[in-house]
């Protein structure tokens, strides 16, 4: 009895590696993309393009605000200096 049990266990143990290294199961059906979960359906390219575009727009917008503010300050400085110069004469 014990010998038979040992033989069964030994056979099962020796078959383990063969079972473990089986090739993946063959595809039994094709699944359309629309049937996948929403995350897997989501295309990555628009997200990547949106991220890169946002960085460009944010940097350009900020540079433009600096240029605009600097222009305003320099206009005020010129106006002030023009106002002061006749009073010096």
């Amino acid at each position, binding site marked *: 009895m014990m010998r038979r049990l040992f033989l069964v266990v030994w056979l099962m143990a020796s078959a383990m590696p063969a079972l473990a290294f089986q090739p993946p199961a063959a595809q039994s059906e094709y699944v359309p993309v629309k049937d996948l979960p929403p995350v897997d359906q*989501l295309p*990555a390219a628009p997200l990547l393009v949106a*991220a*890169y575009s946002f960085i*460009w727009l944010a*940097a350009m917008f900020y540079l433009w605000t600096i240029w605009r503010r600097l222009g305003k*300050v320099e206009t005020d400085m010129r106006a002030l200096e023009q*106002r002061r110069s006749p009073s010096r004469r």
Partner: protein
Amino acid sequence: MRKAFFPLLLVTSAMFAYAPVVIAHADYESTMGLVQKVMYFHAPSGMVMLISAVVCGVASALYLWKKDPAADRVAIAAAELAALFGLIVLVTGPLWARKAWGVWWVWEARLTMSFVGWLITVGYLFVRKYGGPGSDKLAAGLAVFGTANVPFIYVSVNIWRTMHPMTTVVPTLQPGMRGAFWFSALTLFMLYGLLLAARVHLERQRTALDQLYLAEED
């Protein structure tokens, strides 16, 4: 610096325009695929945000200690840039997360602390704009407090294990990704330097204008 500004801006813009080509040629990450390429701008923007917060905090501490107006000019310029790059991080991160994690946002340690850090910077700018007389010193104190938050933002991903990649990701990048990453990082560091110089110049001109007004009143 003024002479070098426009040539450097031209070089940076060219690098910025060429960066997508470099990124497109970088290796694809095995699990996330194309969307992982957001990392090439997201992570360097995060670095710039943290650097700018530290610059703002150190300059504010110098201003409180030495009463040097030049330090205050650097502090306000760095605060604006920390807010700008923080916004970039907070927008590009969710665009990446939506595909990689399946959600736009998770209230985990790194994301939450980055958001709080950004709010502190925005708070600094609001205090400067609407705080009235003496707000410069109040804001400087806030900036020093904000800088204390920076190391916690950085190490948060290593202490609290969440979905966000750890800090070891960047130093261990494979050669096929490393070049593109450091090219993008260099582009953003150069952009940061140029914007900081331009913003400090604006603040210097404002000070000069204030002095002109005072001279006229006298």
